[in-house]
C-alpha cells in the first residue's frame, strides 16, 4: 500500500479531481460571462469615458486627460453633492434603524394583531416608488396637503409650510419618506433574528435578576449586533446610491439642496449632456462607496470565519 502511494508524485492532482475542476470552471463560466458584460464592461467604460469630454447626444468628444477629475476636485458640485448624500444617508438610515428595531421588538411580542401587523408593515417596501412618491407629494402639498392641514389643526403651525420647495424642509421631507419606504427591510431582518434568540437566555437573565431594560441591553442587543451591522452596511450602500425616490420627490431641489451624487451624475449626463464629466463623478462616487464595500466584505468574512 505505502509503496504504491509513494510512487505517485506529491504535486500531481488525481485525474478525477482534475475532471471535477474542469466541470466546475464550465459551470461557472456563464455567470462569469454575464457578470463581465453587465458589471465589468460598464465599469471599465465609465473609467474610459471619464478622461474624455463627451457630448451625450452624439457621444462625440475629445481626450481631456485628468481635466474632468480636476473639475471634480476643485469644483463645488461634487463636494456639495457628497455632503447632501451623507446628510441624506445618515438621516434616513438612522430613522430606518430606530423605527425598524422598535417595530420589530413590538411585533415580536405576543400581541393579538401580530400576524396582521407583520404583513401590513411590509406595505411601504412593496409599494412602487413612483406610487409612494405621488402619495407623499399630495400629503406634502402646500395648498391642499393633509400634512399641513393636520399640523395647522393641531396648532403647531399657523401657515402652510412649503415642504419640498424650501430648506431644510425638503431634506427633512426626503429623509422621512426614505425612512418610511425602507424601514420594513430592517423590521424583517431584525424580526427574523429576534425569533432565533433562545428563550432560555431571557429566562436565565430573569433568574439572574435582570429587568426588562437590562434584558434588552444584555441579551437582545448583543444578539442583534451582527445582523444590525450587516443591515446598516447594506442599507448605507443602498441609500447612498438611492435615485428614484429623490429624483421623483424633489428632483434634487430646491436648486441643488437635495441633489445627491446619483442625481448629480444624472444631471451632468442627461441634463447638461456632459457624459465625460458625469463618468468622472460616478467614478468618484464609486471610490467613496468602496469604503462601505470593504467594510461589508470584512464583516461577512468575519462572520464566516
Amino acid at each position, binding site marked *: 500500500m505505502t509503496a504504491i502511494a509513494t510512487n505517485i508524485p506529491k504535486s500531481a492532482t488525481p485525474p478525477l479531481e482534475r475532471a471535477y475542476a474542469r466541470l466546475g470552471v464550465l459551470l461557472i463560466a456563464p455567470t462569469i460571462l454575464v457578470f463581465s458584460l453587465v458589471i465589468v464592461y460598464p465599469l471599465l467604460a465609465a473609467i474610459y469615458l471619464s478622461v474624455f469630454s463627451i457630448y451625450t447626444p452624439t457621444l462625440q468628444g475629445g481626450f481631456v486627460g485628468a481635466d474632468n477629475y480636476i473639475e471634480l476636485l476643485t469644483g463645488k458640485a461634487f463636494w456639495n453633492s457628497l455632503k447632501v448624500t451623507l446628510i441624506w444617508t445618515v438621516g434616513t438610515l438612522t430613522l430606518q434603524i430606530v423605527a425598524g428595531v422598535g417595530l420589530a421588538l413590538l411585533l415580536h411580542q405576543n400581541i393579538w394583531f401580530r400576524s396582521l401587523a407583520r404583513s401590513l408593515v411590509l406595505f411601504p417596501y412593496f409599494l412602487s416608488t413612483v406610487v409612494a412618491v405621488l402619495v407623499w407629494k399630495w400629503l406634502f402639498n402646500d395648498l391642499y396637503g393633509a400634512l399641513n392641514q393636520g399640523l395647522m389643526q393641531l396648532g403647531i403651525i399657523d401657515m402652510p409650510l412649503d415642504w419640498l420647495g424650501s430648506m431644510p424642509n425638503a431634506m427633512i421631507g426626503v429623509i422621512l419618506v426614505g425612512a418610511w419606504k425602507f424601514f420594513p427591510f430592517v423590521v424583517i431582518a431584525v424580526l427574523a433574528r429576534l425569533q432565533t434568540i433562545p428563550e432560555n*437566555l431571557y429566562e436565565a437573565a430573569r433568574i439572574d*435578576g*435582570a429587568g426588562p431594560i437590562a434584558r434588552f441591553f444584555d441579551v437582545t442587543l448583543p444578539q442583534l449586533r451582527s445582523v444590525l451591522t450587516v443591515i446598516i452596511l447594506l442599507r448605507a450602500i443602498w441609500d447612498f446610491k438611492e435615485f428614484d425616490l429623490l429624483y421623483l420627490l424633489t428632483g434634487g431641489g430646491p436648486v441643488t439642496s437635495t441633489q445627491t451624487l446619483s442625481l448629480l451624475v444624472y444631471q451632468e449626463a442627461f441634463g447638461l449632456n456632459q457624459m465625460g464629466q458625469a463618468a468622472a463623478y460616478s467614478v468618484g462616487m464609486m471610490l467613496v462607496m468602496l469604503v462601505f464595500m470593504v467594510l461589508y466584505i470584512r464583516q461577512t468574512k468575519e462572520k464566516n470565519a
Partner: protein
Amino acid sequence: MANVTFRNVHKAFGTYVALENLDLDIRDGEFVALLGPSGCGKSTTLRMLAGLDFPTRGEILIGDRVVNDLAPGKRDIAMVFQSYALYPHMTVGENIGYPLKKRGIKGRAREEAVQKAAALLQLEPLLDRKPKQLSGGQQQRVALGRALVREPQVFLLDEPLSNLDAKLRSYMRAELIELHRRLGKTMVYVTHDQLEAMTMASRIAVMHAGLVQQFDTPDAIYNRPANRFVAGFIGTPPMNQIEGAVDGGDFVVAGHRIPIDRTAFVDSLRDGPAVLGVRPEAITIATGEGLPATVRLAENTGHETIVTLELPDHSRIAARVEAARRLDVGHNVALRFDPAAIHLFEATENGARLNRDETPASVIPMRSK
C-alpha cells in the same frame, strides 16, 4: 431555612392540565430528583418554582415565604438549564459574574466571588474565553458556576447533563453529588434518566401524567414501587408485570399456579384479577417445576445476560442471569420467582401495589390535608 413546599399546586395550559394537585415537601439541604417521561409535568414544576411559569392555583413556598408573586430574580434561587443558556457575547468570567452584577455587587467583591466559583469548578484558566470556545462539559461547568456564584438558597437543575456524552455524564454526576455535599444547599433536579435520579437524589418524585406517583428514597422507589407505573418505569429492564388472578394461596397465570404468601399482602387483597410484579433479577431459570416459558432472546451485555422469555399466554418478560449462562433460543424452561420479591398490583391500568410493607408510611408520603 430553604425547604421548598408545593401546596395543592395546579397548572393548566388552556385546556391541557400539566399538573394536578401537586403536594411536595422538600426538606432543607435535600437533593430531590423530579423523574418522569417527557410531558409528565416535571419541567413545569421546576419552572414554576423558578418563577418562569405560574401556577393556575395553589401555593409555592421557599422557606416560609410564599413566592407565587415573586419575580424569578427575587426568589433566591439559581437555575441551570439543559442548554446551559450562557450569554454568548460574554466571557466565562462575565457570565459567572452576571448575577452579581445585576445585584449591584461591584469591583473586588464580585471578582473574588467569581474567582471562588471558578476555583471550585476548575474554570480559572477559561475565565477569558467565550462560551463557544468551550466544550460541552466546560459550558456545563460555567452554567453551574453562574448558578452557585451568589450562593442561592435553592438550586434548580433542568436536565443539566443530558447534552453531554455518556462518559462525561457519569463524571459530572459524581461532581454534582460532591458539590451538593460541600454546599449542603437544597437542590431540585429534573431528569428523565432514572440512573441520574437513583444515583444522585436523596429522594425521588416519580411523575407521570401531571401527578406525583411516588415520592420516596431511591431504595423505596426500586423495592417498594407504589404502583404499576413506578414499577414499570424504574429499572433496566423494568419490573415484569404478569397479568393473572389471585386464587387462595396462588397466583394463577394461564392455568399455572405460582404460590404466594397471603400474609405478605394487604388484608383487602381478594381473589380475582391482579398483576404480579417481579424484578428480572428475582427470576430463576430452571427446568422441571415452575412456570413454563420459552427463551426468545438472550442479550449478553458482558457482565450479565438479559433473557427475554415468552409465557404460555404469549406475554413476554425479562430475566437477568449471569453472563456465562448459555440459553438457546426456542428452548423450553421453567421459571421460579423468589417469593420474597413478589409484588402484587391491582389489575387496573395504573394499579396500586398491594404488598404489606414494614414501613408502609414511606409510600407516597404526601401531605395530609
